[in-house]
């Protein structure tokens, strides 16, 4: 990948100094150098890209992180932060001549404050663990990526992760109040506050979604939300994906913001049903899941209103979850969509474009055409409420040429998202995967501004180099093959 090549190779002496320095900072078992120990770190959830790092550091304390950063800064060694490694864009893919800084040992929930409704946590804490710890107080952490049993809050912050309830409850950026961050030179700063704002520029917004390129999150304070008394979900079947898409607009036009609003097409429903037996309608071309939460009276009112809209929009079947077990079953299918597709294909690529919903019909039609063109299957899972589309491109890496075809197909979908006024990534990040398509979405001046933001925090481009923002050279290469801007 461009990143590794663009970064300077270390001399033997420099490597020796680095290893000696790290040994002084870390216990023996916290520094991995042997090739067999490095292999588990060679990729994240984007397994099509693999790269062994120089070494992996697994610090336990903030002081160790600071000391590691200082050393790497002094020796000009790249540092790639890693949470749980569930990222889907190669954000945590190592850099050949760099250190992987794993935050996996930062697993402590430091404080749950039921009065202020906040949780103070270390970056390696799993997303779901926060909600579990808050549950006794009737609170939970709202953003719920489907990977929530595994992914870390540090990774969520770095990607601005979303979930199926984000239309109503917001993304990570809306639910994090404060982070403590170590800058590349080891300086520790507090960004945001336990109040609702802080003086000066909104650096918190810059940190969230910055893909580990501006600083290392050492600690975070997140907002906790009161658990609604009741939640119920409507599952509606449609004989046409376009009708399902229009139904989404109709619900919103009726003044309803459902707690969750998700859509799956037939290939996705099929894969899921075989896997989790959620009771999905296999004859439907698309199904919609629309959730309502609140007081029992409120839920009854909203569910009735949504059913009326869905019926008018042409749903062929409407089912309302009868109890909590059934609600969870309906969602289990949606949440298991990626692994379910993973079962029916050796490999898959998950795309993440966001589009203005009104272009859904056009985009889905084009995706189907492209699938034909590239001779690959594709299932679509859609955060319908906020326009975030996850086409899952199925392929077999062992078949000559399929990786390339899948990657090219994915690239076309991303460009299509940009063409209709959307974006190449809604929640998974650019990482290594979409760095080329950034040239389609942004002009050279805009990309230069991004590099300037990066330099404001990390002058020598040591944190996660080569990710997210392409160099001008990368864009000229991309331009030769793709459709770049300006």
């Amino acid at each position, binding site marked *: 990948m461009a990143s590794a090549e663009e970064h300077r190779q270390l001399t033997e002496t420099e490597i020796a100094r680095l290893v000696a320095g790290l040994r002084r900072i870390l216990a023996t078992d916290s520094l991995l150098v042997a090739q067999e120990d490095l292999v588990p770190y060679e990729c994240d959830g984007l397994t099509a890209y693999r790269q062994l790092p120089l070494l992996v550091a697994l610090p336990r304390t903030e002081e160790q992180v600071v000391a590691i950063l200082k050393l790497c800064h002094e020796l000009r060694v790249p540092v790639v932060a890693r949470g749980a490694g569930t990222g889907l864009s190669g954000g945590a893919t190592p850099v050949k001549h760099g250190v992987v800084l794993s935050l996996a040992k930062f697993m402590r929930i430091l404080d749950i404050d039921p009065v202020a409704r906040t949780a103070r946590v270390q970056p390696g804490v799993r997303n779901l663990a926060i909600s579990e710890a808050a549950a006794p107080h009737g609170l939970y952490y709202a953003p719920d990526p489907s990977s929530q049993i595994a992914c870390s809050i540090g990774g969520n912050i770095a990607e601005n992760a979303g979930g199926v309830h984000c239309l109503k409850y917001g993304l990570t950026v809306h639910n994090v109040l404060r982070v403590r961050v170590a800058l590349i030179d080891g300086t520790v*700063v507090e960004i945001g506050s336990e109040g609702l704002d802080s003086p000066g520029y909104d650096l918190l917004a810059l940190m969230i979604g910055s893909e580990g390129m501006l600083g290392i999150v050492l600690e975070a304070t997140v907002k906790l939300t*009161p658990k609604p008394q009741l939640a119920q979900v409507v599952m509606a079947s449609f004989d046409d994906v376009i009708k399902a898409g229009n139904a989404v607009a109709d619900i919103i036009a009726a003044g309803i*913001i459902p707690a969750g609003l998700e859509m799956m097409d037939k290939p996705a429903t099929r894969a899921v049903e075989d896997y989790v037996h959620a009771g999905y309608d296999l004859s439907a071309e698309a199904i919609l899941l629309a959730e309502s939460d609140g007081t029992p009276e409120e839920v009854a009112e909203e569910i009735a209103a949504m059913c009326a809209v869905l019926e008018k929009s042409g749903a062929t079947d409407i089912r309302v979850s009868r109890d909590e077990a059934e609600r969870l079953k309906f969602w289990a299918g949606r949440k298991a969509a990626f692994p379910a597709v993973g079962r029916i294909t050796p490999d898959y690529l998950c795309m993440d474009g966001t589009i203005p919903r009104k272009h859904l019909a056009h985009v889905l039609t084009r995706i189907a055409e492209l699938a034909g063109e590239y001779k690959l299957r594709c299932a679509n899972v859609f955060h319908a409420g906020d326009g975030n589309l996850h086409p899952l491109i199925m392929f077999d890496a062992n078949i000559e040429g399929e990786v390339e075809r899948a990657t090219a197909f994915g690239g076309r979908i991303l460009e299509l998202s940009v063409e209709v006024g959307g974006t190449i990534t809604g929640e998974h990040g650019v990482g290594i995967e979409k760095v080329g398509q950034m040239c389609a979405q942004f002009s050279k001046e805009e990309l230069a*501004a991004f590099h300037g933001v990066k330099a404001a*925090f990390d002058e020598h481009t040591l944190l996660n180099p080569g990710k997210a923002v392409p160099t001008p050279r990368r864009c000229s290469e991309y331009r030769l093959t793709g459709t770049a801007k300006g």
Partner: protein
Amino acid sequence: MSERTEEFRERVLAAAVEKTPLRIRGGGTKDFYGNAPAGELLDTTGHAGIVAYEPTELVVTVRAGTPLAELEAALAEQGQMLAFEPPHFSPLPLWERGRGRGGDGGAAGEGIGAAPPLPQPLPHEGGGEFRATVGGCVAAGLSGPRRATAGAVRDFVLGVKLLDGKGEVLNFGGQVMKNVAGYDVSRLMTGALGTLGLLLEVSLKVLPKPHAEATLLLELPQDKAIEAMNRWGGQPLPLSATCWSDGLLTVRLSGARAAVVAARAKIGGEEVADAEGFWRAVREQQDDFFSGAAALWRLSLPSKTAPLALPGGQRVEWGGALRWLKSDMPAAAVREAAAQAGGHATLFRGGDKSAGAFQPLPAPLMQIHQNLKRNFDPQGLFNPGRLYAEF
């Protein structure tokens, strides 16, 4: 590029050559806010109009000079709103009347219930009326009563079109709800007081207006009110605003009819008749609390912070997270108290701004601010010193 954008661009390029800073102004309703504005006036009000609005996409894109009131009216027609409820400060806040050029100064000290007199229409330096603009609203980053539950301006900014200090037109974010391509520069612009560039267009997420609302009034001392706000905040209640002032706690509920009815029974208190007027006055700082000569401080604190043991009138909003303090205490003492509580203090109006309007930043953060400023505005053309004297 539109003619107007081209005009702005030429202004910026000329300013760069002449090395004359520019003072960006929309409606000019927030001139009081931040440090004193400096530079040649660059008026955005001509750059107005809604570019795109699709209610079912929940997104609106507007030119920065569009009057906030015009945008809000267009949204209301579709049953939607800006959920962060931004203050317009026009008509001018009570404390602005009688200051400057031509207010009558008569409002201070009038009894509760007396309708405050309308402000004298003030001549705008650039001509026209005092009208808050969308650009000013985003640049100032000020949110209203619904902020604690619905979110702040920054939470609803989806994208911006910006003219930077090199005269380049840049687009960040977009017109979609979720977008993580590149750093979140759109949100960075929110609250930057125009120091990073001239906003040309902004895309905002909009929301449907609540189906039902009710406003309740309870008699409670400040400590009990703060406790109650935090307790209710931890329950699944449709709270949409809270305000404690002078022994009275006012609570607004918004949402589905059934939810509002159930919550009203739970919270108790008296129903407020002119609820809309009440919250407008709070938002626009037009009620009696804001009269008087003392400096007005805005303290942003963790919501459960106990009442501040500071001399001067206090008002509590945002579930406890926003405290207004009218006090002539030394700035350093107010700031120290805010920092002790885990927050920060802004000298919102009046007082001695020689130590800056905003809480000073720790050195490493100031360095990052200066680096960012240099990135977007290398020659320091836009609103120098408005946020911090250092840039």
